[in-house]
C-alpha cells in the first residue's frame, strides 16, 4: 500500500495504491495528516483509482480525514471509486457528508 501526494495551489491530491485494511490504514493516515499539517490545504482529494481492495478501514480513513479537515475549515473529495469500493461507500452513508465522484453513482447494485 502506498500513497503519492501532490500539491497544486491549495489542493492536495493523495493517490492511493494497493489494498486498504486495518494494517495499511495506519501508515496512510500518518502520511496524509502530515501533508495536511504542513501544507494547510483548502481541499484534499483522495483518489481511489488504483485501490484494488478496501474494507471498512477505508471508511475510517475517510471519516478521520473529514473530521481533521472540517476542524480547519477545509474540504474533502473522493474520486476514482470502482463498483466494489462504491458498494462499501454506499453502505457507510459517507456520501451524505463527503463528495464522492464515481462513474457508477446513482446506479443500483445487487446485494
Amino acid at each position, binding site marked *: 500500500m502506498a500513497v503519492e501526494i501532490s500539491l497544486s495551489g491549495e489542493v492536495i491530491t493523495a493517490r492511493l495504491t494497493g489494498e486498504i485494511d486495518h494494517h495499511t490504514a495506519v501508515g496512510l493516515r500518518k502520511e496524509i495528516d502530515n501533508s495536511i499539517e504542513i501544507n494547510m490545504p483548502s481541499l484534499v482529494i483522495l483518489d481511489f483509482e488504483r485501490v484494488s481492495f478496501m474494507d471498512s*478501514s477505508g471508511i475510517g480513513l475517510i471519516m478521520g480525514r473529514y473530521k481533521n479537515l472540517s476542524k480547519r475549515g477545509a474540504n474533502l473529495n473522493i474520486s476514482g471509486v470502482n463498483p466494489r469500493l462504491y458498494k462499501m461507500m454506499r453502505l457507510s452513508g459517507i456520501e451524505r457528508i463527503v463528495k464522492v465522484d464515481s462513474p457508477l453513482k446513482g446506479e443500483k447494485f445487487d446485494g
Partner: protein
Amino acid sequence: MADKNCFSMIVDSRSVNESFVRSVISTFAAVLDPTVEEISDIKTAVSEVVTNCIVHAYPDTIGKIYIKCNTEGNVLTVRIRDKGVGIPDVKKAMEPLYTTAGDERAGLGFAVMQSFMDYLRVYSKPEKGTTVIMKKHISVRYDLRR
C-alpha cells in the same frame, strides 16, 4: 457441481495476517468460480472478521485466530473463532456505526458481513471468545468445460 472440500488454519492475531487470511479464503473459494464481485464481497467480509479479532478480541495480546472453511455445492461457509475477550452484548455490537475502537474505526464491521454475505451468525461469551459463521452462495454460471 463442485465436490465438498474443506480446510482449516490457525494464525496469529497480527494485522499483517488480515491480507493473508482474505487471500487464502478467496483462493479456496475460487473453485466455485465466483464473479469478481463475489470474491470482493468474501474478501471484504473476511477482512472485517479478522480485524475484529485483532482489534477487539485480543486488544493487548497476540492470540490465535482459528479458521475453518468449506464448500458444498455452490455455498462457501467460513467459520472464524477466537479465544479473546468476547462481546458482552452482541446485539449492540452489531448495530451499524457502533464502535468501541475510537475515531479511526467506522463501526461497520458487522454491517459489512451482514450485507456482503448471505448468512451471518455471531456467538460470543465474555472471557471465552467469539465465533463468526458466514455463508456465501456463489452464482452458478454455465460451465463451458462440460
